């Protein structure tokens, strides 16, 4: 094992260990931060996974909201426990994802993106207009007697994030990943190599949808309240895309780095500047700066630096 690889493995193990211990520290503030960071990791990994196949999603709030509602309704109406309701949430998300992929067929790039945005907005309108299920604009509370307390929920979010990372790593070793990357470069060319894009799109969005719905479901158990504007908030989509772009798109670690940075940054601005307008303003500036100055994200910057130091002379950021 090369020293660099060993260092990476040790760092990974260290972070994993720390994350698994955190829920048992028990402080509400630490739990809240852990939940926010880990749910953003899940969202970012999910968004990055779709992007890896060339599918630009502007509809991650749809999966998030569906997952939240699936968890809420299964818990309140059927008495589902935390893990059961999360499985239901993931099923709902993967159904929605595969359905969306099947319906959008061969739409690409910006057209796919707009279709996903419309999908999410439709769900918001439907949720607002069907108060018999969702409580309408007044929202619904999770039955308080069902809530298992903060530690199990936080542990659930940590395990969820680790599981999503494991899935994304496992996928990166398979033929599936190679096919997705080929589709991203050119769907036409990948067809010539015998790749039928549809099953890959369906598979990819089913997994990404399940992940984002898991994050939504977990956040419902963390917060205990849901209304259509919270569930299908565009802000979820913005966060899901900003974390990978800051960290580095098409990489495994980029979404994680980005998610941690975003949550820390928004906490710091909230503490220093108060009003939430500033933290969102900073997210916008970050988005613009990243796209213009470092489209390969922090991971890309780091790789450039490492390559320069190694003297390979190439300035291109490698994509994983």
């Amino acid at each position, binding site marked *: 094992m090369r020293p660099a690889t060993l260092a990476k493995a040790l760092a990974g193990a260290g972070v994993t260990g720390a994350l698994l211990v955190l829920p048992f520290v028990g402080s509400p503030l630490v739990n809240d931060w852990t939940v926010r960071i880990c749910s953003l990791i899940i969202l970012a990994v999910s968004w990055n996974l779709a992007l890896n196949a060339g599918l630009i999603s502007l509809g991650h709030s749809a999966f998030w909201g569906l997952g939240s509602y699936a968890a809420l309704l299964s818990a309140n109406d059927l008495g589902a426990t935390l893990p059961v309701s999360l499985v239901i949430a993931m099923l709902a998300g993967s159904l929605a994802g595969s359905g969306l992929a099947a319906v959008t067929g061969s739409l690409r790039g*910006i057209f796919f993106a707009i*279709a996903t945005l419309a999908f999410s*907005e*439709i769900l918001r309108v439907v949720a607002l*207009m069907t108060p018999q299920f969702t409580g309408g604009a007044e929202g619904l509370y999770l039955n308080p007697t069902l809530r298992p307390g903060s530690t199990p929920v936080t542990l659930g979010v940590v395990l969820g994030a680790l599981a999503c990372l494991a899935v994304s790593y496992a996928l990166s070793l398979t033929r599936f990943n190679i096919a997705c990357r080929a589709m991203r470069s050119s769907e036409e060319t990948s067809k010539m190599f015998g790749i039928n894009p549809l099953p890959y799109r369906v598979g990819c969005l089913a997994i990404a949808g399940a992940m984002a719905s898991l994050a939504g479901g977990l956040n419902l158990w963390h917060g205990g309240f849901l209304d259509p504007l919270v569930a299908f908030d565009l802000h979820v989509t913005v966060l899901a895309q900003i974390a990978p772009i800051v960290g580095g798109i098409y990489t495994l670690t980029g979404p994680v780095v980005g998610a941690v940075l975003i949550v820390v940054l928004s906490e710091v601005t909230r503490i220093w500047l108060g009003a939430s307008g500033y933290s969102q303003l900073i*997210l916008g*500036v970050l988005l613009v700066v990243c*796209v*213009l100055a470092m489209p390969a994200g922090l991971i890309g910057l780091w790789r450039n630096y490492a390559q320069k130091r190694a003297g390979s002379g190439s300035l291109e950021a490698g994509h994983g």
Partner: protein
Amino acid sequence: MGIYLQLLIDGILLGGLYTLVATGISLSYGVIRVINFAHGEFIMLGAYAAFWAVTLSGLDPLLMLPAIIVGGGLFGYALQRLFIQRILNAPHVNQILLTFGFSLILQNIAAILWTGDLRSAPSVVSYSVTELGPLMVPHSRLVAFTVAVVLVIGMLAWLKWSELGRATRAVAQNHRAALLMGINIHLIYAICFGISASLGAAAGSLMSFLVTISPWMGFPLVVKSFAVVALGGLGSVLGTIVGGFVLGLSETAVSFFIPGGSGWAEGVSFVFLIAILVFRPRGIFGLAVEEDAR
């Protein structure tokens, strides 16, 4: 009978505004090939400009319109030159994220400077109405509609008859060939983005006396405009106009005929959008230009 005529009038008056907003998006996408998610923020800024003009100087929002159009144009021109210019050949995802970033920045600057309070900017035409038998035509909507139609026709005339308009159409058809013909395509891009922004700002100042103004008013209008543009087919000017009226009439009809309809009406554009993208991606008129491979 009267009620149907009334719905027709309401729908057409609403459709004119949708057409104005969508024409701006259609122009910038058709020529520059970058979907501008921040277009709604031009509308929002135009509405706030009108609001502050009324509040600080007591001028009518309509009197401010020329200044708002010029200001919006300069703002758009600068935005294109400074930022959009640099991502013309970037992957789609970067273009989307950049304009999304602008949208976030402008929304939150507005929220920080002017708070999230809902406001409105009354005009002299706000409180008068013409009654034609059983029909009601509010003057505010009629004036907004008329100005919108004049602006859209003006833009079309510019495209059709002016030298720059001809150059713009050439760039939209094939930017490489236009470049070879000696057209300064980057100037054309910046001018188009400026015109697009000024149409957005104009729409905003018209809306300042029709709807409530808030920092977040723009984004939903952008998504509706995507529906209008998709209905008409990208690149089809006539299609965009028809699309605006189709959306205006459908929303009016849905909010009237369906119980609790004004909530559902908000969803009409999204359903149109998905249906058109899925079943007929080239729009009703099928004139859409193929997306080039750049």
